[in-house]
């Protein structure tokens, strides 16, 4: 990799100016990040310059792998019980539904999550952030969605952490999610954020989603009905995967309504 040395890193002001400029030139209303959003420096050499080529999906692309409890044990959705002691930090519950673009639940599908600990440190050999590891927290979990598309994890609120994109760069606290839909083309890897984080406007990864309302869809809501007395703070976050017919069927439904 050609990561610049520390001396050559841009300032936050320079990165923020790039974010503003790149967003001003973006396609309005885009759901997904611009792969060429180079305020996120690692994107510079890792995004295709050619347009994607359209393909009609074949059968294999219209189905997904099948998962079940042969693959995932129910307790794997609780990231706080993987060691002998309790992890440090603010215990949280994150719950919601996985839906397709037509609002149908994505049933019995695999959800994988991973995150930093409460100090902002990942259990990963490449994470050099000088924050403590927690011997009682690994930060990985997985589950199979319910018949209503629901998921629920118990965890610890992750900390923000510094990275080398630019000088004094900090990632807002987030949980990584990996999702499968009913069709492989619905595959999604994303990050869930916590409401009210002052780092949002400064972060080129979140801001690579150039549409403001699309960015909001990655931010969980605090939900007091999810919060459990004397136990954990609750957040709700629904995930919408593309429906195979999301683009065509809206018009068709209108015609037949």
């Amino acid at each position, binding site marked *: *990799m050609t990561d610049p040395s520390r001396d050559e890193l841009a300032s936050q002001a320079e990165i923020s100016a790039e974010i503003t400029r790149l967003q001003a030139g973006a396609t309005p209303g885009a759901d997904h990040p611009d792969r060429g959003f180079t305020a996120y420096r690692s994107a510079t050499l890792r995004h295709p*310059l*050619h347009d994607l080529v*359209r393909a009609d*999906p074949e*059968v294999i692309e219209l189905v997904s792998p099948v998962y079940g409890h042969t693959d995932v044990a129910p307790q794997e959705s609780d990231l706080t019980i993987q060691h002998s002691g309790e992890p440090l930090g603010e215990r949280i519950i994150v719950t919601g539904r996985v839906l397709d673009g037509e609002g149908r639940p994505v049933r019995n599908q695999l959800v994988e999550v991973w995150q930093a600990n409460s100090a902002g440190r990942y259990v990963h050999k490449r994470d050099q952030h000088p924050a403590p590891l927690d011997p009682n927290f690994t930060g990985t979990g997985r589950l199979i969605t319910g018949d209503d598309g629901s998921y629920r994890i118990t965890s610890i609120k992750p900390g923000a952490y510094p990275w080398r994109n630019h000088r004094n760069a900090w990632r807002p606290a987030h949980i990584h999610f990996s999702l499968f839909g009913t069709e*492989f083309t619905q595959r999604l890897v*994303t990050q869930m954020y916590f409401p009210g984080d002052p780092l949002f406007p400064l972060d080129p990864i979140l801001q690579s989603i150039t549409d403001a309302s699309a960015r909001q869809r990655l931010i969980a809501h605090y939900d007091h009905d999810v919060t459990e007395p004397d136990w954990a703070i609750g957040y709700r976050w629904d995930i919408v995967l593309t429906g195979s017919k999301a683009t065509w069927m809206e018009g068709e439904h209108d015609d037949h309504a």
Partner: protein
Amino acid sequence: MTTPDSTHAMAARQTPSQTVGPFYGYALPYAGGPELLPPHAPETIRLHGTVFDGDSEPVPDALIEIWQPDAAGAVVAERGSLHRDGYTFTGFGRAAVDGSGHYSFTTVKPGSARAGSAPYILVTVFARGLLHHLFTRAYFSDEPAANGADPFLAGVDAARVATLVAERDGAAQYRFDIRLQGENETVFIDYPLSRRA
């Protein structure tokens, strides 16, 4: 019929992608992930290659997933992609590249899923720096007739078709390098039914 509930849900817009980041390595790879078939089974092939960036440097932190039908071209619907039992072919595999950007799967060569289309393995690329994953297809160099008749390949710029073809480089081994950007950039695929942007 459109119920009020589904009308509301239809208004829901898609959740955006974000990069897999650098730290998936302790979360997503799993035991047996690259081995859809055991390495030394008689019908096993190896699909391998290197992921390169726009400077033709290897990408040491990419994650590759494959998804494919069986040898007869039939979709399998077996559970157990995360829990290899050594017997069941599920059609899904996942491999992190090594420090030199190289990945390797052992699997079965898929059959063609329908008459007139060439067999291929669907390949998905995730990486730090890649804000939204990329799909591509690995066709096979020893299927020239099927590839020549394939309607998708026929529509691809002739100068770029070779980037979609895994080259046979051993008795039962195919090499499929993935170039994210620049010279010989791999053809990446978009599906009309699954993308709004």
